[in-house]
C-alpha cells in the first residue's frame, strides 16, 4: 500500500494537474480573507472553499492514470487497492491545502469577533477551523469518489454531477459541511467557538463509506 501511495503521489505531483485547483484555492483565500478579518469568519471561508476543491482533487487522482497503466498496477495490487491509493492521495493533497489555508488565516486574520469587540482565543479557534476544514475535505472526497470513475465514467456526467453535489452540500442546511461552516460564522458574531465535532464525525463516516463502496466497485466497472 505504501508503494502504491508513493506511485500515486508521484503521478499526481508529476502531472501538474494539481496546479489549477491549488491556484484556484489560493485566489479564493486571497479574495475572501482581507487583512484583519475576524478569525472565525476567515476559518469558515477557508473551510467552505475546500469542499469543491476536494471534489476536484479527487477527480484528478482517480482519472490521472490511463486505463492501460491502471490495469498494470491493478493486476499487481488489486483494483480496489489502486483506487483506494488514488482517493487517499487526493485526501492527502486536500489536507495539505487545508493546513496551508489555516496558516494563511492565522497570518492575515484578527483574533476577535465579527464586531472586533470580543477577543477570540487563537488555539481553540484554530482547532475549530481545522476540524471544519477537515469536514469539508472529507465530504468533498466522498462526492468526488461517488461522482467519478467507477460510478460515473463519462466526463459529461461526472463533472456536472460533482459540481452540483458540491454546491448543494455547501448550501443545504442538512449537510454536515454546511453545519460546520455555519457554526463558525454564526459564532463569530459574538465570539463563541463552536468546535464541529459532530459534522467532522459524520463526514468521516460518509467519506469512509463512499470510498469503500467505490473501491469495491472498481473491479466491476473498470
Amino acid at each position, binding site marked *: 500500500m505504501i508503494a502504491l501511495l508513493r506511485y500515486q503521489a508521484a503521478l499526481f505531483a508529476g502531472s501538474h494537474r494539481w496546479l489549477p485547483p491549488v491556484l484556484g484555492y489560493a485566489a479564493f483565500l486571497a479574495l475572501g480573507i482581507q487583512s484583519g478579518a475576524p478569525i472565525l469568519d476567515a476559518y469558515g471561508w477557508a473551510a467552505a472553499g475546500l469542499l469543491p476543491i476536494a471534489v476536484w482533487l479527487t477527480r484528478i487522482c482517480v482519472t490521472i492514470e490511463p486505463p492501460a497503466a491502471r490495469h498494470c498496477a491493478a493486476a*499487481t495490487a488489486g483494483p480496489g487497492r489502486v483506487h483506494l491509493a488514488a482517493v487517499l492521495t487526493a485526501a492527502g493533497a486536500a489536507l495539505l491545502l487545508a493546513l496551508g489555508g489555516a496558516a494563511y488565516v492565522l497570518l492575515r486574520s484578527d483574533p476577535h469577533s465579527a464586531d472586533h469587540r470580543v477577543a477570540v482565543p487563537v488555539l481553540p479557534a484554530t482547532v475549530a477551523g481545522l476540524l471544519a476544514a477537515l469536514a469539508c475535505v472529507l465530504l468533498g472526497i466522498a462526492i468526488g469518489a461517488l461522482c467519478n470513475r467507477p460510478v460515473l465514467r463519462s466526463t459529461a456526467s461526472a463533472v456536472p454531477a460533482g459540481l452540483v453535489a458540491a454546491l448543494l452540500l455547501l448550501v443545504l442546511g442538512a449537510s454536515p459541511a454546511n453545519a460546520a461552516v455555519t457554526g463558525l460564522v454564526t459564532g463569530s458574531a459574538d465570539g463563541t467557538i463552536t468546535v464541529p465535532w459532530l459534522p467532522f464525525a459524520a463526514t468521516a463516516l460518509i467519506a469512509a463509506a463512499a470510498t469503500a463502496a467505490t473501491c469495491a466497485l472498481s473491479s466491476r466497472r473498470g
Partner: protein
Amino acid sequence: MRLDGVGRRYGVRGPWVLRDVRLDVPGRALLRVEGSNGSGKSTLLRLFAGIDSPTTGRITGRPRTAYVPERFPAALPFTALGYLTHLGRVHGLRGPEAARRATEWLARFGAAGHAGTPLAKLSKGTSQKVAVAQALLAEPRLLVLDEAWTGLDPAAREVLDRAVAERIADGGTVVFVDHDPRRLAGLADAHYRIADGRLLTTAGGTAADATAAAGPRVVIEAVGPPGSAPWSGPAAEPPVRTAAHEPATRPTGLVPGAAELPGHPEVTVGADGTARLTVPAVHSDALLRALLTARPPWHIRSVIHPGTDPDPDPDEAPLP
C-alpha cells in the same frame, strides 16, 4: 488458480461477453487463448489478471500476477526507469532492487539507453518494452499477455519469447493472446477458443503448430552427476529468484522423467551416459539454466543448433 462458472457482462442489461467459464489453471503451463476480434479475449485476460471481477461465478487462488496490455500509454510523468521502479515497489520489491531489475530488463530488451527518457518521449515500441519489463521484473507466478508482442521489434519479440519460457521454467503460468498463429507455436500446453461467450478447449495441433514443433530446435548434450545415470533428471526447477515477500523455494529432490524440465525435452541417453535433450529453441536458455543450477549440477558437453547439427537427432524423421 481456478475459474468456477465465471461469467462477465458489462452493464446490468448488457449481453454476456463470457458465460460459464470453468477452468483449472495449472502451474508451469503456457495457455493460449484465441478468438475473433471482440469475442471476449481481452475480457477473459482481464478476469485472469484480476483487473475485472466476474459478474457471476468465482475466481479463487490467484497467485502473484502481472499483466501486459496491448498498448501502453505514454501519458505518465515518469522516466522509463522511474516508472519501472515504482511498479517494482508495488510488486513488493525494495527500491534499489526494483531499480536494478528495471535496468536489467531494459538492457535485455535493448532499451537501456532509454532508461532516463520520459515515457512521453518514447516511441511506441519502446514504451511497449517498458510495459513488458514492468510485468517481468517481479517474476510473477501468473503472467497475462494481451497481444504483448504488438509493436516490439523482432529482437525484442524473441527476448519476450524466452522470458515466457523462463517464467514457465520457474513454475509459473503464462496466459497469452496473440494474432500471430506462429507465436510460441508448438509450446502452448493448452489452447482455448472463445466462441459465443463460451470457452472451448481446442486441440493445439494447428498447421502452424506442426511446422513450428518440427522447426527451430536445439540439442543439448549433458552429463549428469555420477549416480544419476541412466536418466533421473535434474531438479525440475532452477533456484527461483523471488520477490522480496516470497520465501525462496529450492527444490532439492530429483524429479524422475524429463517431462518436468523446461520445454519438455525429448531425451535420449547414449551408452556413455550422455543425455541428448532436444527442445524448442525458445526453451534452450531455460533448460540450460535448469541443468546448470540443478543440485548437483549437470555438465553441459555441447549445445547444437539444428542448422549446424552434424548428426541429426535419430528421432527426427528423414525428409522425403
